């Protein structure tokens, strides 16, 4: 059987510190839109249970090139010499990925695909860079809370016996949580684990960043799992939280209530890959 993709290891960015895998269709393309996938949290670029490997290969089988890479200091990429780390460092690295794809592959624009912190990074870059032609944000953590979200949340909690137990122990747990938040993180020999942390996106920031992207005509796919109930817990919550998105033909949202946050279940992983691949091909197939 002939492979439906080819893969090449690449190094790019400042002093070629960034390490990535370029997955392309066997027969091309020489130009068009490329997808970019980077680390969720501190998970290496292969993704949880190789989610990113699978997604990149599926996209290539459908004619779309993908660069998946490690941010500075994560996976197999070296730490950047500059001070920028965390979200700011991620922005620089994503722009470097974009430049690399333009310069070496003739890519005419990038669609950023990211889960959790990577969705945060993708949105930050997509809001301001003209190179960004699309965004797939999976479990973006932001202020999506609505009245229905709160009602749903408490209705579900009321149905669980552990909630009643928690109610009794809450003061102790709250004190411990506060203590954890205030204490300096224990050093474990390297600060890498903090590279993947991003803040919760305030609604107005989210609105402004999406506006930057949508005003350029770039489409966005939101995917939400049921794994972060505090963040998102019902179909259509996005439209209730940000009503202006409802009418936009550029915005689509999918809720996968049974999937966990990191999609560490094969069937949900496959469903996610299918959802994203279909969307990318539908949106960029003619340009990919």
């Amino acid at each position: 059987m002939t492979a439906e993709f080819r893969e090449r290891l690449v190094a790019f960015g400042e002093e070629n510190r960034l390490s990535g895998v370029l997955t392309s269709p066997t027969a091309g393309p020489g130009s068009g839109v490329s997808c970019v996938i980077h680390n969720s949290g501190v998970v290496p670029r292969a993704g949880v249970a190789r989610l990113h490997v699978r997604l990149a290969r599926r996209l290539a089988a459908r004619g779309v090139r993908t660069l998946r890479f490690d941010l500075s200091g994560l996976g197999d990429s070296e730490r950047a010499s500059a001070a920028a780390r965390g979200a700011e460092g991620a922005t620089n690295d994503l722009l470097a990925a974009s430049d690399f794809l333009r310069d070496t592959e003739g890519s005419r624009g990038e669609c950023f695909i990211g889960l959790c912190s990577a969705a945060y990074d993708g949105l930050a870059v997509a809001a301001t860079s003209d190179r960004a032609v699309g965004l797939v944000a999976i479990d973006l953590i932001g202020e999506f809370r609505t009245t229905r979200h709160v009602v749903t949340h408490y209705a579900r909690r009321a149905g669980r016996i552990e909630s009643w137990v928690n109610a009794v122990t809450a003061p102790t747990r709250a004190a411990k949580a506060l203590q954890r938040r205030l204490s300096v993180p224990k050093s474990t020999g390297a600060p890498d684990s903090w590279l993947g942390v991003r803040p919760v996106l305030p609604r107005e920031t989210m609105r402004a960043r999406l506006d930057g992207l949508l005003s350029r005509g770039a489409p966005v796919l939101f995917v939400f799992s049921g794994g972060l109930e505090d963040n998102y817990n019902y179909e259509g919550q996005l439209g209730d939280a940000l009503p202006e998105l409802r009418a936009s033909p550029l915005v689509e949202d999918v809720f996968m209530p049974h999937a966990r946050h990191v999609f560490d279940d094969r069937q949900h992983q496959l469903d996610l890959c299918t959802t994203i691949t279909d969307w990318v091909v539908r949106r960029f197939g003619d340009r990919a």
Partner: protein
Amino acid sequence: MYALHFGQSPKRLYGAYDPALTGPGLDAVLVCAPWGPEWLPAHRTLRTMARRLADRGLHVMRFDYFGSGDSFGEETDLSLPSMLDDIEQGVEECLALAGADRVWLVGLRLGASLAALAAPTIPEVEGVVLWDPILNGASYLEEIEARANVLDGEVWDIGGHLLSAPMRDELADLRLDSARDLTRVKLLLQHEGDETLDLGPIVRRYSGPKPWVQEGEFGSAPLPTEVLDHVDELLSR
């Protein structure tokens, strides 16, 4: 660090090579990673170990088994014989890159068990470091079965990692405690309280974090610096 693909197509493997940063670099080290759900949390520890050893004058290569990590193939392609072949291929590649004649194998969990089994068949192996090897495959299967979601009555899904029925059979037969030849094992690192092999003074117990155990959904495991010190000490002599 240089990333490379090696091995014959279509069985191409991903390698990450850290050349020695000091000294003449006479020795090479091949790192044999854990399998499946233990691979991801351990990645940072193994990368850190590779860099520390390179800093101390060793040429170090990490690699992903066929069907895992950044290598080609699907997880259902994995089997213990195939992983043993990959170790052999890795040794060949590592020696060629390093221009060395001898290689150390450092393995973690299933990677350690396989390194121990591969060593007697590879003449260039100078010594082996076992880090919490899986001693008894049947017990290991019992341990992970609790987390397995059975697909099609055949394949186990363990946190998104597939374990085929043939590989389960191979794991069930894995017994390091009855392995005939462990003479090349020079260091056995075993977490305190866990069962170990009776290999005398080369056994070192350690406490603290287990690097293959994930902290939360997105966290890698903390670095077990005490263990890395033991490995440095042995291999930098």
